[in-house]
């Protein structure tokens, strides 16, 4: 009887520390292998080169020539005979975004609506992919419906 009594009174104390260690080891493993921020998709359509149409009204068109490191030369109208030209920056002031929004205001003042507001984007050989995507992104941000990614001039005949 005595033996049984002592057995019954014995408290069961399991040391959980190794279990916690193991648990956190697994957590760390899953944290590192998981991808939390899922990549997003950005839609891009490019013009079919075989169909030539370059008929946008001069007054509501702006041509952007992308240089290096976010420097962009803009030509309101077409590059050949711009109505106004200057330089804007993608990542600092004077910013491309402000200019595009300002241009929209001027178009609305002149023409009454901005339905023909077109942006022609012309990257150069030094332009990086990031800048191109950022400029395309500006089109989304400033809600410009019509924009075209032009090809390099050298490639054009």
């Amino acid at each position, binding site marked *: 009887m005595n033996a049984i009594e002592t057995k019954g009174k014995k408290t069961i104390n399991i040391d959980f520390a190794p279990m916690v260690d193991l648990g956190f080891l697994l957590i760390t493993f899953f944290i590192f292998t998981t991808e939390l921020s899922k990549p997003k998709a950005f839609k891009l359509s490019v013009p079919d080169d075989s169909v030539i149409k370059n008929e946008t009204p001069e007054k509501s068109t702006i041509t952007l020539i992308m240089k290096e490191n976010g420097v962009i030369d803009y030509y309101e109208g077409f590059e050949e005979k711009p109505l106004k030209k200057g330089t804007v920056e993608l990542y600092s002031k004077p910013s491309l975004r402000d200019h595009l929004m300002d241009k929209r205001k001027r178009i609305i003042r002149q023409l009454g609506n901005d339905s023909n507001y077109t942006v022609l984007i012309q990257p150069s050989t030094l332009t*990086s992919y990031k800048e191109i995507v950022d400029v395309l992104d500006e089109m*989304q941000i400033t809600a410009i419906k019509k924009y075209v990614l032009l*090809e390099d001039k050298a490639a054009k005949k």
Partner: protein
Amino acid sequence: MSKLNKIAKKSTWVDMTAFVDVAFLILSFFMLATKFKPPEVIKIENPKSVSSENQPDKDVFKVSFDAQGRVFVSFSSDPEGKEKAQGLAQQLSKQKGLNLSNAQIANFVRFSVGGIGVPVTQLPSFLNFSEGEYKQFPQPGIPVQDSTNNQLNDYLNALLTSTGGRKPTNVMLNGDNGTKYPYFKNVLAAFKKNGIFSFKLITSLEGVPSGTPLYKQQNERK
């Protein structure tokens, strides 16, 4: 003195049960929420955009280009993606006279999940690799540098021929921040040549700056 003794004798036993509970709760969360990163042989840092559309993961044909301008093609690992990869390999083998064996084509399908970036002529020897060799091998990328030897064009042509002209559902472009425009342009040129004009660029999410037209639009919708 007797008080001090008592404190010193107190055992430091901590009840770990609650701790274990929390640990395993977090563990099960991560186990359920996890989606393993697909194996990639190239490191690509995507640009950011305000686009919030989720990237599709079924039936994907992906063209990646890294900062050095190396171009890779890959397919998703679901049945449709595998079928397309197989079709591409068979067609490419036929068109270019590579005489790929069934084992080599099977390897193409297997490697195409991680990315394939070798010139067409190197394909037969490349497809003899084992999984380990594939991971070690520094792939030179599919040549796209000039319009006369734009081999991405060959890959795309083979893909379209194998599907009978049907364009792949999800064409993704996976570019690195530092890729220079000429490479991107040549990739686009190959797509244009094959009549594919609509893509999805893979980007990571960025907040919409406040006060901009898009921001106003989104707020109106809410």
